[in-house]
């Protein structure tokens, strides 16, 4: 396995840590509300064939929230700058949950910069009506219900009791950043559905069959809004198929990347 390198990309006063992992065609990985993913087995596995780039969204992983940041919009434009700065050549863009929403927004603005798009249990749209709760309220669910919604196998979930105080504070800070980017409209951009047609690159949606945060029906609605998208459902997985079923996840990614 190749060793990871960590750099900090400074973008007009906002420092973005970026972990580079492996070698091969580039993959830009956008994490979700639980924070960076570079330590997970699926990423290490993919790094055997790809160069993964894992930026940490401001506010996550112990980084500060920039004073002028209010919403996901700030993240979208920060990453347009980041992609310019990294000078990536046609990377695969892959986003998880909130990071999937971010990836879709980036692809809408500038699909030509990316070769392919992978959205994993992503949020970002509101397929239902005013009275439909399309995305579980992760900020208001009791801890038990949140675990049941997010995981097929709850033993895979992070255990706060085993964390150090510093680690737990990072989790708490991640929650703040997650809230900042997703609070209202909750986990979606009402305009996105009218813009997703602009994504003209091959797109794969990967979904955990038992995701109770955003269901496979939600995933299907998202797929139907993106012209060249297909969807692959992974069984025995919830909101984090890349964690619960890393083998199946990596296999689907590899197949899509090489197709």
């Amino acid at each position, binding site marked *: 396995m190749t060793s990871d390198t960590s750099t900090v990309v400074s973008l007009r006063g906002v420092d973005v840590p970026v972990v580079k992992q492996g070698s091969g065609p580039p993959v830009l990985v956008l994490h979700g509300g639980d924070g960076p993913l570079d330590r997970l087995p699926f990423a290490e596995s993919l790094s055997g064939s790809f160069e993964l780039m894992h930026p940490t969204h401001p506010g996550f992983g112990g980084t500060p*929230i920039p004073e002028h940041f*209010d919403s996901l919009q700030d993240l979208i434009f920060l990453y347009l700058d980041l992609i310019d700065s990294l000078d990536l050549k046609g990377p695969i863009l892959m986003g998880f949950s909130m990071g999937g929403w971010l990836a879709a927004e980036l692809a809408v603005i500038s699909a030509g910069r990316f070769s392919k798009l992978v959205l994993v249990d992503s949020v970002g749209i509101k397929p239902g009506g005013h009275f439909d709760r399309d995305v579980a309220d992760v*900020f*208001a*669910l*009791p*801890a038990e219900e949140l675990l049941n919604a997010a995981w097929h196998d709850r033993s895979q979930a992070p255990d*706060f*009791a085993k964390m150090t*105080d510093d680690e*737990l*504070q990072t*989790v*708490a*800070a991640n*929650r*703040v950043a*997650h*809230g*900042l980017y997703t*609070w*209202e409209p909750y986990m979606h951009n009402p305009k996105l559905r009218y813009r997703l047609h602009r994504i003209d690159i091959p797109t794969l949606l990967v979904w955990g069959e038992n995701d109770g945060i955003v269901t496979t029906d939600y995933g299907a609605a998202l797929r139907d809004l993106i012209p060249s998208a297909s969807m692959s459902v992974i069984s025995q997985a919830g909101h984090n198929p890349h964690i619960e079923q890393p083998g199946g996840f990596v296999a689907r990614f590899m197949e899509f990347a090489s197709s």
Partner: protein
Amino acid sequence: MRAWFFTEDAYPDLPDVGSYESIRVNLPNKHFDPSRGADLYNMYLDMWCAADEMGLNIMNNEHHQTATCMVPAAPIMLGILARETKNARLLILGNPVANRSQPVRVAEEMALIDVLSRGRLECGFVRGVPYEIAPANVFPYRGTEKLWEAHDLITKAWTTHDGPFSFEGRWFHARQINIWPRPYQQPHPPVWVTMGSAESAAQVAQRGHIGAVFLAGYPRIRSIFDGYRQGYLDSHGNEMPIDRLAYCALISVGKTEQEGLDVAEKLLWYMTSNKVPPQYSNPPGYHSTAMAATMMRGNSSGTGLPTATTLAEQMARGNVFAGTPDQVYDQIKKFYDYCGGFGNLMMMSQAGFMTFDETLSSIKLFSEEVYPRLKELTSGYDAGRMQEIRATLPDVENINVSALASEFVR
């Protein structure tokens, strides 16, 4: 000293405590009987009117989606009291302006009450407790900054009398602001702001507003009030007048010590009934990450309460003053000396199942036998002398301050 009679207007008839997850946010309103609610609203208004007749001032507040407080719109109750009372100052503490989307509307509501009452309004602004976040659907991060932006807009709206002005801030936007009516009091009604730390106190002091503290008790009151005094001195170049500080405690006065304590036990309903799970007491962005992490660790009971809930513990903390008139005066005097003095006492003297008669008996004894002595106590306030007294009293050890205790200090 000015005393302010306060009840939070509870709806006390709850189902078995084991049958629901939370008294706030998600307790189904099928448990609210409108007929019983009508009786309670009228009883609470009658209590405030009686307090007015006794020479006490009036304080009210609002909460949302909770049986602990039936009033989701404090200005409506205060509007009634503006008409029904004669002498009392009318304190709303307060307007949760960080959770409201239209500060101009708040400025209008407050101006109306001020005019209707012929200048008796005292207008408070609060950030609100964490359980208000879910009902308001407002992201609480930078809530204090948002509160001050709303404050700036509202005070400008009150004091601008020559036509529209424009405000385009971070959170609030209005391009043609020109409120009718304008306030009765000039330049505007006295402003109160709640504070829970030396830092937040300094922000209130800088603007010269009245700084209000709820239930901080001996463990925290000195740091907060010291922060205010220092902040005031730094900003204004002179010692603060004593009427700039306010403290809220649970107060029960009985004809006998036992009666005072028995009624105080009923007051504790305010604390013991506050069953709130972590997802409502720890929304992201409300607390510091250190405190949020502590709460996630589950070191707290998750009830959102100071952990000391026996009467004796709450009295030792300085959150409850109870007993005979002499005893209550002595308890308040001791706390007053300890913290360096304050000019406003907000008295939560009704909660839970306390009846109309029990409440009136307690506040009547207070107004007749305690209040005159408190007025005398503060009339001779001398900042230098007060600090000398304070210096003779050592810091009280922190008495069982849980991470969550600070929630009530907002």
